[in-house]
């Protein structure tokens, strides 16, 4: 006898419960098996009354589905639409694979004695600071010295492509959100979900959709995780532009396009840049997790450190990621500071 027998008896469903199934078809839990073995029915006091969950109801009526049917059903549903979904998504996301492959090839193909000075020079142009450029050159040299150069370049290549795509997609989405309150209302829950969903979770359906050998798998994972801040801050930045300046733009007969490129984007630039900085930082965080699904780079070493308990490898590669983060953060912040200085109010 189970606790909730009376529900099915009361509703006159006993026939449905017993007649339909061929006895106890569903797998039993360990405690059920033990009870069966010992042959005695446990006494359930009021204090221990179980919640009328699917499993408890299944105890009383075999025809009632167990709770594992929910997850199983979801899985079956996903597998049913999977093929249709991947015929649509595969061609759309193929350029991402190519971009990642090409970037990986390019970053590793260029010899170190061109790459390191080139990066230092780029930082110099962006930040106008020799100190930062020297720090960057020194960091890369140190990583190369302990033979982590290739891994570092792989990570850099992946971040380069993913952050670029995040900005290319995120800024227009943010602009569209700033123009329509309805779109903003619809997007905010989606963005919240993307930001709070544990990153491991969306790796699972992605593995089903794409092959693990394809670069776009980790590319999409990184982009989904990292695109949120740039969308949010573009939307916010444009909405925060001084109302009177927008009014002035209208009063002098600017078209929508002139207003967007001449007023709104330039004035929102500090916020957009802050979003880009956050996006780069988040893609760096995700590139480590994405090494679980074959993303190359320093994350692979971190993973090796965990799997094989190689303390030294794990720590050094972790430090390498920190160094990379500091470099990317400082250079984008320096660019941001320049934008800010140019448009004080």
């Amino acid at each position: 006898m189970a606790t909730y027998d009376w529900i099915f008896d009361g509703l006159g469903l006993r026939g449905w419960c017993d007649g339909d199934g061929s006895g106890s078809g569903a797998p039993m839990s360990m405690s059920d098996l033990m009870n069966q073995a010992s042959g005695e029915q446990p006494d359930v006091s009021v204090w221990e009354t179980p919640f009328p969950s699917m499993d408890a109801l299944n105890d009383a009526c075999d025809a009632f589905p167990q709770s594992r049917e929910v997850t199983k059903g979801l899985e079956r549903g996903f597998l049913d639409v999977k093929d249709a979904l991947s015929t649509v998504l595969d061609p759309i996301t193929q350029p991402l694979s190519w971009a990642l492959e090409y970037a990986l090839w390019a970053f590793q193909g260029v010899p170190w004695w061109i790459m390191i000075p080139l990066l230092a020079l780029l930082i110099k142009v962006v930040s106008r600071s020799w100190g930062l450029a020297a720090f960057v050159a020194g960091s890369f040299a140190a990583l190369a010295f302990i033979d982590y150069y290739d891994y570092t370049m792989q990570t850099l290549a992946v971040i380069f492509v993913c952050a670029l795509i995040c900005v290319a997609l995120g800024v227009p989405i943010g602009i569209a959100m700033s123009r329509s309150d309805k779109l903003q209302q619809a997007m905010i829950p989606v963005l919240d979900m993307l930001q709070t969903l544990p990153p491991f979770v969306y790796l699972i359906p992605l593995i089903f959709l794409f092959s693990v050998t394809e670069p776009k798998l980790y590319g999409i994972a990184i982009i989904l995780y990292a695109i949120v801040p740039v969308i949010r801050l573009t939307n916010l930045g444009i909405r925060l532009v001084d109302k009177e300046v927008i009014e002035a733009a209208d009063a002098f007969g600017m078209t929508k396009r002139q207003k967007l490129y001449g007023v709104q984007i330039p004035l929102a630039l500090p916020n957009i840049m802050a979003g880009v900085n956050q996006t780069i930082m988040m893609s760096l965080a995700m590139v480590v997790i994405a090494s679980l699904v074959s993303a190359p780079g320093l994350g692979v070493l971190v993973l090796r450190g965990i799997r094989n308990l190689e303390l030294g490898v794990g720590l050094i590669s972790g430090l390498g990621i920190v160094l990379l983060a500091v470099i990317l953060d400082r250079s984008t912040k320096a660019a941001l500071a320049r934008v800010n200085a140019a448009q004080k109010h």
Partner: protein
Amino acid sequence: MADPKISIRNLYKIFGSDPQMALKHAKEGMHKTELLEQHRHVLGLRDINVDMQAGEITVIMGLSGSGKSTLIRHLNRLIDPTDGEVWVEDSNIMTYSDARLREMRRKKMSMVFQKFALLPHRTVLENAATPMIVDGAKRADWEKEATRWLDRVGLEGQGPQYPHQLSGGMQQRVGIARALTSNSDIMLMDEAFSALDPLIRTDMQDLLIELQRELQKTVVFITHDLDEALKLADHLVILKDGEVVQQGEPQHILMNPNDPYIVDFISDINRARVLRARTVMKKTSENPGDTSGEVDGNDTLESVIAKSRGNADLSYRVMQDGKQTGILTMRDVVTALVPTEAAEDGMRKAS
């Protein structure tokens, strides 16, 4: 009188979820407070009729919340009315398409803002040239024109600076230069000098009067400051709770206020400094012979009192363009300094 440059006819503006419903009540005679209490709609403007003549400064004055900023934004349709028409040079701008409206904003109307509203990422020169850049002018052209107007408002050599490097007064000069660069006949000024400190404000008022003497634009000026209104206005419109309380020539309003609200308003000003000889004098072209001198019709009473050294027995001939237009006795001068009560008749009628 010539056709007005801008004519506002039966303009209503109501803010809220169902303005058309509230409009019906407003047209049936409901005022701001009742409409808010009974129907939860804010009455922005109610039955506004104002004619603005070409080449004059029309000042719209009222306290905050009186709807003056809303009103000026209807003239270039930054705000669309709930009901009514705005005519600019014989065409109703409510019928304009977007493209035609933009054309009007670029060529016919320019605007100066309370908080300057300059573009912080552009130089002073580029800011001053905004109307021409928007219209797609060549760099050489707009550079020349903007430099000319920057020089005219007293900002020689400031072109390459950024707005945040200038003081408030200088930034508003850029705002005025920007409005002038568009070469439009109509200039809308929304509390243009209210954010400036008093001394700089006086400077800017003088600059505006000087520019106006030279350029003869149609200026619509919004202010909450009566002294400023009296100094600048050719035609004064006083707004309260979204309605026109009185409009007309400022001297006339001072002598014949038709509403307790206006009496309150004008009770604090220095009448001697604002009232002019031609307003107080007795009109006559005869020369009584025993006068002690001549004063100009536009002299303020303050200067007449100074001239008489406080002697209340004197009288003066009031001259306009070399001809006598009236006689001013010091007795009239002193009487005029006492604030008048609200005139019984002529409530809310244009003078």
